[in-house]
């Protein structure tokens, strides 16, 4: 269970551990969280297991524990060394937890959870748009906490700076992910129904390496800054809203479109941006019905009214009282 938090405005020392691998995705989250903690008055260090310097911390967070461990034990058949180090780190921190950014019904989450059990970490902080508590197995629910993937202060400032500028966007859509059957079928329909000259990039599924075909965060940003609609299809059938894709689109001035093959669930009503979640059967009609400028303005406006990342961190991880976090809401 989450241990008692110290006083809200104490100069807390926070350590955020990222994988530091080629997969930029989780590292980005680590640095965003670092900014949020910093804005809340904490002193923050970011490291990998390799660069960790033993010290005392009030809080240690691992951003995707499994990736962190795998990156540390690269080339080794098991994660024994990583588990040993994490256990040693645990002895030098008051509070410890794992940050999740994935659907809890997938194997990736199962790997992380297994590692949590092996290292004795009980606090799971799920960063996203919706709580996945109902989808978790009962035994896993203890220690689960959801917090909203809002903007940091610097991200908010950036959005406010460019929200009224209108950059030319010659690319109508971008559809990017690893190649699998469902995505390939969708790409075929996308080209037939929504125009041929969008960006399609579906490399084969492989580990992310320097030599591999993946694009990194900067490259994605570069593409989205010239693209009207950033479209994706989940590669699993479980209900999950990929909040980082929405944020990536926002930061590049693009409009995110999540295409799903099911009707909205009961939970959908509580989600933001449901107007950007289109059903696969008639996504093209809905997309054509959009006025790009209007839907972009609405998306930006809506995102700016949502709680900030600082607010989520303060309330959920630091357990600060609501009034103390109002400035960051």
């Amino acid at each position: 269970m989450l241990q008692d938090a110290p006083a809200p405005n104490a100069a807390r020392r926070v350590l955020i551990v990222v994988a530091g691998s080629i997969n930029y995705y989780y590292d980005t989250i680590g640095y965003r969280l670092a900014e949020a903690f910093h804005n809340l008055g904490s002193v923050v260090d970011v490291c990998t297991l390799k660069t960790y310097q033993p010290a005392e911390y009030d809080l240690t967070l691992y951003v995707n524990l499994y990736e962190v461990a795998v990156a540390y034990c690269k080339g080794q058949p098991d994660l024994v060394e990583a588990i040993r180090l994490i256990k040693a780190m645990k002895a030098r921190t008051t509070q410890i937890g794992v940050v999740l950014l994935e659907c809890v019904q997938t194997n990736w989450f199962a790997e992380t959870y297994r590692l949590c059990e092996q290292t004795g970490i009980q606090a799971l902080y799920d960063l996203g748009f919706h709580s996945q508590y109902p989808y978790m197995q009962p035994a896993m629910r203890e220690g689960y906490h959801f917090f909203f993937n809002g903007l940091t202060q610097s991200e908010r400032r950036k959005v406010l700076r460019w929200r009224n500028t209108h950059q030319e966007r010659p690319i109508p859509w971008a559809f990017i992910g690893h190649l699998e059957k469902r995505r390939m079928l969708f790409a075929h329909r996308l080209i037939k129904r929504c125009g041929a000259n969008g960006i399609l990039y579906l490399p084969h599924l492989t580990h992310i390496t320097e030599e591999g075909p993946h694009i990194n965060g900067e490259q994605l940003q570069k593409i989205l800054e010239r693209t009207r609609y950033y479209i994706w299809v989940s590669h699993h059938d479980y209900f999950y809203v990929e909040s980082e894709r929405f944020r990536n689109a926002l930061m590049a001035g693009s409009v995110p479109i999540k295409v799903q093959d099911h009707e909205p669930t009961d939970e959908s009503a509580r989600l933001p941006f449901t107007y950007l979640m289109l059903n696969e059967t008639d996504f093209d009609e809905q997309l054509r019905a959009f006025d790009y400028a209007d839907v972009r303005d609405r998306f930006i406006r809506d995102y700016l009214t949502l709680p900030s990342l600082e607010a989520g961190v303060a309330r959920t991880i630091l357990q600060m009282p609501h009034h103390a976090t109002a400035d960051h809401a």
Partner: protein
Amino acid sequence: MPNTPAALRNPPNGITIAIPNWNHEFVLGRSVGSALRAAALLRAADVPAEVLVLDDASRDGSTTLLRQLEALYFEDGLRVLLRVENSGAPAAVRNQALFEARYRYILFLDADNEVLPENLPLLYRSILDTNAALVYGSLILVHAESGEAQHLLSAESFQDRILDDNYIDTLALVDRMQLLDANGLLSDARMAGREDWELNLHLAFSGRRLVFVPVVAGYYYTMPHSLITEKMPPEVWQRQLGYVRRAFNQLDLRRGHLLNTRHLRYHPDLGYI
């Protein structure tokens, strides 16, 4: 390959869509139609363009159909060349196109495939911007009878794994001058059916650039008895792999070797990605 004639040394910019044909009467209309639409789009954007069909002595009704198509669409830029004797190798016909094309850039289009007209101008801008020898986009592999998409080809930039097998199809826009300078395609029996693989390796390891453009360039239809659906006999595969290793990677030094072309991805509205 003979020396380049003087008339070919400075061909005007523009695109020749070259379609080698051998007994594809029933699908020629689709490939030629897509090529004519692409040529019209290019001309509308002030890019000179033509469609050149090179028939490799077909024995079906192709030649009659092609003559009719040429009569109908000559004004739209369709030219037809009929070979009297079959070359026995698609590469030989493509090499002929290097000499017969009017324009500097050639899009090789198989007679049973289809180019996506809207994206050819993007490939053209990409090859002009990058001075590449070859630019290509993804191809959607479509079952010819059901029309269902089955796979995606040519979907990634040039990487070392191409030494193990080819994944960049012939449907690509090439700089004819660079191909002539590189002696064109290998047209003997050693790499029959896999001439594109040999060409990709030859260009890359000659210091030239192959650039991936992340758009869909066309459709590759899986026809019965086509190269992609017929399983290659193991001994043929071993022979071809042996040739590739002998010609390009005999000392196993290629992986990680400096290249001008590894991971080149480009889009004219983005630059290199």
